[in-house]
């Protein structure tokens, strides 16, 4: 067991865990933050996407020992009251079906808008290609990102 200090959504947490535990399970099982989802455990689906500084990462395949002092943003910390332009656009376009993939989609889109505030349709498609939505909400995700980019 190792000791780590994590900054999650601006808040410091002291935790003690095995060094190979992926960030996903630290968030879900130890910090009890359930917004970040488990979909594949192999960096193949994007359900577990969080931001490490401004970069989107797959937390299921990111060991806690690699986090260092980079700050973590999860869906719970993306905005106060769910008013990030992406979250608003997600509601306006009624994007979710089952909703399970959507927090990962939103976090991945947040990273996209941070580096490209006005992405084209094909830029959105390739940036979001790592995030699976089995319900097939791709069309509305795309529309919502375009809407959000306008008020970003």
């Amino acid at each position, binding site marked *: *067991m190792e000791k780590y200090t994590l900054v999650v959504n601006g808040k410091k947490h002291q935790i003690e865990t*095995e060094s*190979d*535990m*992926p960030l996903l*399970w630290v968030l*879900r*099982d*130890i910090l*009890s933050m*359930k*917004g*970040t*989802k*488990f*979909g*594949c*455990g*192999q960096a*193949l*689906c994007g*359900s577990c996407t969080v931001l490490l500084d401004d970069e989107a990462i797959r937390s299921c395949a990111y060991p806690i020992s690699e986090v260092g002092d980079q700050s973590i943003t*999860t*869906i*719970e910390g993306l905005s106060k009251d*769910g008013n990030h332009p*992406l*979250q608003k656009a*997600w*509601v306006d376009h*009624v*994007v*979710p*079906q*089952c*909703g*399970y*993939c*959507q*927090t990962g989609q*939103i976090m991945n889109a947040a990273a996209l808008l941070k580096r490209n505030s006005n992405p084209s349709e094909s830029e*959105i*498609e*390739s940036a*979001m*290609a*790592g*995030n*699976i*939505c*089995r*319900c*097939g*909400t*791709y*069309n*509305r*995700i*795309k529309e919502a990102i375009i809407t959000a980019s306008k008020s970003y």
Partner: protein
Amino acid sequence: MMPKFPFLKTKDPENKSKVFVPSRRDFLKLSSLATGGFILGVNFQCSGPKGELITFAPNVFITIDSDNLVTIIAHRSEMGTGIRTSLPMIVADELGADWSKVKIVQAEGDEEKYGDQNTDGSYSVRMFYEPMRKAGATARHMLITAAAAKWGIAASECHTEDAQVVSSGGKKIKFGDLVEQLKTMEMPDPETVTLKDFSSYKLIGKDVAIYDAHDMAKGEAKFGADIDLPGMQIAVIRRCPVVGGKVKSFNDEKALAVPGVNRVVKIEGAGIPPGLDKPLEGVAVIADNTWAAMKGRDVLEIEWDLGENQNYSSAKQLEEMLKSTSGNGQVRRERGNFNTAQQASGQIIERTYVAPFYAHATMEPPAAIAHVHGDGTCEIWAPTQHPQWARQAVAQALEMDYQNVKMNITLLGGGFGRKSKPDFVVEAALLSKAAKAPVRVQWTREDDLHHDFYHAQSAQRIRAVLDKNGNLSGWNHHTVFPAIGATANSAEIHPSDGELGLGCIDFPYEVPNIRIETHESKAHTRIGWLRSVSNIHHSFAINCMLDEIAEAKGVDPVDFVFNLLAEDKDLDFAGELKGDFGNYGEPLDKFPWNTRRLRGVIEKVAQEANWKKALTDGKSVGFAVHKSFLTYVACIVQVEKGSNGQIIIPEVHYAVDCGIGVNTDRIRSQFEGGAQFATSLVMTSAITFENGRVQQNNFDGYQVIRMPQSPKKIHVHIVDSMEKPTGVGEPPVPPFIPALCNAIYKLTGERIYQLPFKS
């Protein structure tokens, strides 16, 4: 005999109306609520204007309290169809509630109280449209009677809106202020209350956003694995890689040495047949957290007795299945005499179609939480489509009365039929009992793909006979696939009537000689139902064949199919079927098989997609039409070559006749999602077995489409209809598959006879 599949269950009208017998006619005071659990989830903290919260509960679906809070129960499982919104909004509309302030509470699994909760077979709206309206209307009727009495005017002068009763003279009173007065009022008979006129609905027939959208966008929506209980342990299970296998021996030393691992427990499987509601044989590692459990599982040493399926190869079986279709099978429908037609033929077109096993791959892998208490009771939290089945299966496994099993339903991160089966819920219950603690069972993606209840692989052969005048005079359809029923009864080696009723036996076209035959095949794995079930492969084969016949005749496939329906009529297949026609559990007189409605969607889609022009413009467009789950759907798909030669789907048009469209936004979203789902079935997904084991491990092996491959513009044209509403969860999938295949043929010149098609 109708097979006893939950998705085809014949509806029992007695049970339906039972939901209206108010369980408690009188008013429930706050004190009694706290223990009664009758409206679990309502905020008990608030106090009413008179210091005491009084709650009016005219039936199990509605409560109105003196603080004016209207709570509506959602009793069907939410897996992405929006049903948690669409049924409560029907109640709210009849009631005249203020939708923006309505609170929706998920019912626990209790069929005696709420009626059927098995969320499957696209039948929630079909089954509950009427009952939900009556539930709302009953409460509205009582509120209006109370207000009219208070004001000394006739009830006919009053209506409800925004959670108030309003008189024609302009008087207004909040629902909550009438609650006290309702104490002494008689309950009207829900069967005779007057329902609103359709034109006065404010929600039904409109786009209504889902209730959970905000929570989902904020990460606050609670799915199966999101419930935390104090002292909860996490279990991950190594299940036998071959269905029917057993644990010979295991060594848990290394697993127990992993920090955080507390216990290793063997789970007994049913063997062969594996059963639809039983766990598979395996060994569970129970730990403080998910990661420790996974690591413990990695180092488990298990010696398996793999059993009779250990040499199973799906490719070999498929070959045999395909071969069998050239012989005589069991005749399941016969019209005229196919042999005579064949002898008099001008041309025979014979084609075979094969489709693979598919996994559900719900985005949320199965997970469930159980807490078995020492006093012989148990509480479950699970993303289940079928609460009652799960409750019964748990009760059976724990040998307790099902009344002692409390079944809480979380949101489902996708269902598609997978989460009808309660095997994973039973696992949680057994492990909680063993660990004497609350336990969450967590399936990994590998577990999910290796141990699913798969959509069966299939082989089909269709012989189409054109007579000397070029008319389609004979149709001989052979179909073979391991039956769902075989999962519970190995003696089932032919597709059941129920499975044939899914788009095969009900071939609706006016062909004078029809013979439909099935062949034998055994199940060597667990077979289940996947979004639209055997409509998937039947629609693929039939619609691809019709397209090819039209081409052989040199006619437009849309015109060909339209004309093949001959005059408008209700089909009953009388005298032709060798078994029963299930009609999705509904009597034909109530839900006729109407060819006019099928034609209606053909006309509509051709017009909206500008079909003729697309053809003359040389676009690669494909068409198909298919009725399933009592909903009529036609589809036109357009494809193009992308810059790397890959296939792109720029545009899709759907026309749908699902009767009254209850929540039009969710109808569209189901069609959008259905097109995406079906694209995966055509382009990317397949499960195969060698040595009895599934060869795909994760989303790298079992691929589903991603955004760049997804159909770009999906237009959903809903036919204006006042027919009884029918479901839309599954019907988008079947016609899309052949429409896409037919479009790809236009683009590449190659017909698709085998799914998935890899470009």
